[in-house]
């Protein structure tokens, strides 16, 4: 892990990057639009990123998340809009004068330079004296756990090591803003999980404003302070991971993040009803022409005795049980034909006692988990 060096010896401490002169900057994106022909890659995007925040742009491929990152880096010129780093307007600043660190999906490590050559390159461009370059390169490599790898060639490194070198190169000149374009997509799952934690703790240590692009919702939930869900060039919702999961703004967000069952519901007077059955729900329902009940599979109870007070219950017929190792998935058909999925943890005995196909069962959903969302796609 990239833990802080801790109570290391004096010499050791000097080699690890200090956070002292890395003041983070807020980023302000307003009304940025980019069209390719008739396609809106970015459609009037406005976004305030706080100083020192870890913000993730999450969306399916082609949603515009990478285009937005490329606008931040200066590689894509938008049609109009404004972009500020702190108080400085940078929308027309060429990339080499923006002073932001970036890691690329392909890592983009220069194959004709050694590891140290790569990491030292931004310092060389800034005319840092040679001795200081060597020191800071060693420090940055130490920070990403690659101490002593300076002389290696890039093609001698594994994927995970390249990823670390790319990070070291992006942070060695202590930029106040760090941009990361799907940095972990080329790694296998185990390594990816480990790197997520490492990148997150690196961010906590260095404190720079970080904009992270991914299409992996779990990665976004794990790492981010806030997540901006992007689709069709627009920001669908900007919220903390928890709010995003529990209070999605619309069907697209609810569908993209996590699994859920959606049931069409209607407003009748003050109540929200599903098939004539009034629902108890903790949070108020949004004002929208169409409404949906979003039920997360792990929040649904399989009822055996009397349900708790105010719990919404649904009569259903059990279908197949899918065993998935750590959990099981039980699909059940409601009377209106909709399938509701229920996920339960697998512990000793839970799987053997499950209903078999065709059994009549009752499903329960607590009012807090009965989330009514805007039924529109965006």
């Amino acid at each position, binding site marked *: 892990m990239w833990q802080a060096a801790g109570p290391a010896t004096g010499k050791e401490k000097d080699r690890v990057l200090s956070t002292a002169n890395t003041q983070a900057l807020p980023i302000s994106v307003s009304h940025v639009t980019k069209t390719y022909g008739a396609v809106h890659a970015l459609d009037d995007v406005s976004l305030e990123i706080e100083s020192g925040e870890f913000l993730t742009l999450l969306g399916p491929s082609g949603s515009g998340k990478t285009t937005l990152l490329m606008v931040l880096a200066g590689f894509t010129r938008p049609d109009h809009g404004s972009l500020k780093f702190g108080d400085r307007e940078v929308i027309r600043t060429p990339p080499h004068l923006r002073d932001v660190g970036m890691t690329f*999906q392909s890592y983009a*490590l220069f194959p004709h330079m050694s590891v140290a050559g790569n990491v030292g*390159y931004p310092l060389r461009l800034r005319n840092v004296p040679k001795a200081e370059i060597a020191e800071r390169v060693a420090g940055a490599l130490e920070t990403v756990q690659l101490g002593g790898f300076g002389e290696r060639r890039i093609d001698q490194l594994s994927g995970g090591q390249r990823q670390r070198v790319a990070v070291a190169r992006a942070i060695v000149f202590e930029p106040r803003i760090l941009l990361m374009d799907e940095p972990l997509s080329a790694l296998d799952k185990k390594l990816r999980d480990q790197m997520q934690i490492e990148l997150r703790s690196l961010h906590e240590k260095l404190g720079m404003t970080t904009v992270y692009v991914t299409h992996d919702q779990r990665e976004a939930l794990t790492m981010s302070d806030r997540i901006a869900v992007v689709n069709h060039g627009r920001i669908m919702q900007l919220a903390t991971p928890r709010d995003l999961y529990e209070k999605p703004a619309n069907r697209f967000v609810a569908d993209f993040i996590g699994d859920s069952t959606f049931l069409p519901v209607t407003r009748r007077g003050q109540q929200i009803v599903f098939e004539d059955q009034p629902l108890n729900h903790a949070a108020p329902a949004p004002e929208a022409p169409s409404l949906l009940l979003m039920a997360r599979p792990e929040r649904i109870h399989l009822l055996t005795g009397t349900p708790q007070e105010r719990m919404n219950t649904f009569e259903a017929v059990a279908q197949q049980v899918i065993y998935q190792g750590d959990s099981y998935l039980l699909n059940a058909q409601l009377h209106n034909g909709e399938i509701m999925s229920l996920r339960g943890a697998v512990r000793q005995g839970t799987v053997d006692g499950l209903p078999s196909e065709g059994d009549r069962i009752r499903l329960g959903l607590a009012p807090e988990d009965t989330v009514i969302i805007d039924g529109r796609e965006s």
Partner: protein
Amino acid sequence: MQAADTPQRSYETPVPSGMNAAGLRRDARLERLKLFGLSSPALLLVLVILVIPVGWLFYVSFIGANGQFSLENYERMITRKSYARIFVTTFQVSLLTTGLCILIGYPLAYFLSQLPSRLASLCLITVLLPFWTSLLVRTYAWLVLLQKRGLVNDWGISLGLWEEPIKMVHNMTGTLIGMVHIMLPFLILPLYSTMKSINRDYMNAAANLGASPRRAFWNVFFPLSTPGLFAGSLMVFILCLGFFVTPAVLGGGRVIMVSMQIVSNIELFVNWGAASALGVVLLVLTMAILWIASRFLRLDQIAGGGH
């Protein structure tokens, strides 16, 4: 870090040794034989049209005027001043042509590599177009254009660029113009394919790290394009060493290269030995250059380009 710590599994114990071993070995041998069988026509062809004639060339170069074994063909090259001048001219013309090709071809290849691929392939066709016209036609076209009362002189004078017709043909200038024109595609093609394979992210990364476009080019793009540049230059240089038609026509007898001396040895003096000896020297020199070059780059890149 990477999990390199998977325990070494031992494959030795439970498998009965020698299971199907003889049969598998026979299959492998048969496969090698089939492969050899496929390539044998090509091998035969190379033997007949390359190895035998070159061997014969060697043999003839050691036969003197009296039909006996002698070194006189080689001695002549050392003792006669005119031969030294021919070799110097050959290298001079080849080096200058290569240099001019680089000066013109590098920016052009760079420009092509940065175009959107559909436009780039269209432009590449125009680069390749000269290949589909006869070499002789192209060379005589230059003769027509560059002569005293040719198009270039007419235009230059009527535009007031110069007053008297300039001698641009039957000399070094004409030879170089023609040879650069003919050789340019041989430089551009490998260079273009190398440049095309340079990931655009590299230049973006350099810019992001603070490099101005000019520094990014010299620090990143140029070093990554050198394999293609070496390959293309070497190709042009070696082709120039043995080039005959264009320097013969455009040089007008004033620029004499090794190939032209070979021709006159045969046509004028009917001295096959002398001509063969020149051919051998040219071959040896070319191979020496290739050998030196191969210490700096992998030769397979000359054919394929890229990494």
